[in-house]
């Protein structure tokens, strides 16, 4: 029987889960968005509502489209929704034990040839898949922030992933309007592995007092035509997550280039996690807009 994509289960209603659910719903596909409790569902719903409102203010969305998106997303607190889903995707934090447990719940309920997608930037797909009844239908996808506008996704093939499942994951990526980058399993894949040493090095430069954070960012942004500098990017991603990835890559590879800069650790210990807490390397208002941009760091026509 031919496989068609009409319903997707997304586990985890955090920022990543909500963004993905929005994107999937925008493509006309129905989504079950699974959270742990009804309190978490309520909180997630209200976060989603304000994110969509912000996009309306930026002219990226209309009120009618917002309603259509919301009507395609069904929030649930139980895994049973997976049984009539054509694809499931987890979007919880980068925690091996938690992801493995979710995979087990999904694997038990889903028809055997329906893909289960692990959304990870650093964990091993093969290892996570190993304890499932059908490890061959498990595939990795690494979505980058912000999910709604970033055009790329790394599609990760585990040791046992079948061609068919891998093809369906590519199809899913295309449907979301993303360009799939095909990668084999290796910690950090392409994007994370290359960007982390860049960020880490930028933090070292700040710690050494070579230049202050705003100018380091501006130099890289204007010099290499980045949309934002590496430090602002780290702030927006969450410094705790950046630290977590670096630690993981350092442990996996033993390479000193992934050893987290002490300044990063200090900021995380101080609770300065970036845009979400209002302060990291830079300051942000409640709408997560930078409040301390340098005069030179503004758009110009020429």
């Amino acid at each position: 029987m031919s496989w068609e994509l009409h319903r997707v289960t997304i586990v985890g209603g955090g920022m990543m889960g909500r963004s993905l659910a929005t994107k999937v719903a925008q493509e006309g596909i129905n989504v079950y968005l699974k959270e742990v409790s009804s309190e978490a569902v309520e909180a997630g719903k209200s976060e989603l509502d304000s994110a969509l409102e912000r996009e309306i203010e930026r002219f990226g969305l209309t009120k009618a489209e917002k309603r259509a998106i919301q009507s395609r997303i069904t929030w649930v607190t139980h895994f049973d929704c997976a049984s009539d889903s054509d694809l499931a995707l987890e979007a919880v934090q980068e925690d091996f034990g938690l992801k493995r447990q979710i995979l087990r719940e999904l694997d038990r309920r889903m028809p055997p040839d329906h893909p289960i997608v692990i959304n990870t930037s650093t964990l091993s797909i093969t290892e996570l898949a190993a304890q499932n009844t059908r490890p061959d239908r498990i595939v990795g996808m690494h979505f980058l922030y912000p999910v709604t506008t970033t055009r790329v996704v790394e599609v990760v093939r585990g040791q046992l992933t079948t061609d068919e499942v891998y093809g369906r994951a590519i199809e899913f990526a295309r449907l979301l309007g993303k360009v799939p980058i095909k990668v084999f399993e290796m910690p950090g894949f392409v994007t994370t592995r290359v960007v982390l040493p860049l960020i880490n090095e930028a933090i070292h430069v700040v710690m050494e007092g070579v230049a202050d954070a705003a100018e380091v960012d501006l130099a890289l942004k204007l010099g290499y035509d980045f949309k934002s500098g590496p430090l602002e990017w780290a702030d927006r991603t969450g410094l705790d997550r950046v630290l977590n990835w670096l630690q993981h890559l350092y442990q996996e590879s033993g390479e000193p280039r992934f050893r987290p800069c002490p300044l990063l650790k200090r900021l995380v210990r101080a609770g300065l996690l970036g845009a979400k807490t209002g302060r990291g390397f830079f300051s942000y208002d409640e709408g997560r807009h930078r409040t301390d941009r340098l005069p030179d760091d503004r758009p110009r026509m020429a």
Partner: protein
Amino acid sequence: MKILVLNSGSSSVKFQIIETDLERMNAHQDLTLAVGLVEKIGLSDSRLVLEVPERKTFQDYREILEHRTAIEWVLRILTDREHGILSSVEEIGAVGHRVVHGGEDFASSVLITPEVVEKIEACSVLAPLHNPPNLRGYYAALAAMPDVPHLAVFDTAFHQTMPAHAFLYGIPFQLYKKHHLRKYGFHGTSHRYVTFRGCQILGWRREDTRLISVHLGNGCSLAAVDHAKSIDTSMGFTPLEGLIMGTRSGDMDPAIVPWLMAMEEMTLHQVNTMLNKHSGLYGVSGVSSDMREILAARAAGNQRADVAFRMFCYRVKKYIAAYAAAMGGVDAVFFTGGIGQKSVEVRDWALSGLEFMGVELDRERNAAATDGEAEITTDGSRVRVLVVPTNEEKTIARDVVRVLNGIMPVFTPPEVVT
């Protein structure tokens, strides 16, 4: 012959069953047997509505996830013993599909063949939101009715007669050659019907006249139809150009786009949505994209609704005078579309001040014309202005008959510039 007319959008399918043939066409006696739509395709509460003359409106809800099941559902209801109007699907003799963009490849309605499908697909780059769902509707209908002819009727075809000095933009010529960047115009099926029917009412031969067709609906456009040929139209490369519309900006300084993208750090998507969905009557008034609500707010003293209304009418007036100039005069102006057919105020404002070129509005006649065909100028008016309700579906059905009988006109471009 009973003809199924389909207009497939991304989340809806509109359909009509029209009984017509050469005799009925000539006598203006085409019969619309059923009108309906399936909306919210892809959702669990998709709705089908079927209206049959002199019967109660039929409605049904179910989960419809794609066009194929939507069309199967339509055919099932059309042949339903209680609610339907057909004894079997075999009664349908042909299917006419509305296709938005035919690019420079199609200057006529055509029988759909694999080569035609290929060309329509190639035009998708010009109309990424419209042509793909039009084709999905075609594939779905073909699967359900493989043995009858399927035809494509293009919104752009009628305007292919525009001369190069009207359709080219003042940008480097190689961009036209490379990307087919030019004015195409839309609403062609409507402008064709309205000018045809308007002349029929007046007892004129369209070939002897200079006409302006003003289509004011969700989208708005005018066409200058000189001796039965479209020589200019206000929509352009996309339906964004020209008049101010419900949520579209219409004409503006193109420099605003890069300026906003730089200063507001807007993405391509955001600036595109801003111009298409957050602008026009809605964007200016902040009240609504619906002219009826704009008029109500204006009557209640809302200043921005008032200015949005005036902008809308002012631009219609400018275009009417411009197209009269383009044709060296105008014999009749036809208003159509939801706003054009119903809004007394819009017609009043758009036509007042045009006395210099021979338009004498009869305010009483205008006030009485709120639905149906009507003349709204005085008996002595040099330019005659009529309200002519559009009927794109009927034109599509008639084109099916024309193509199948080998009498479909071709709207041949007058020149090719290389």
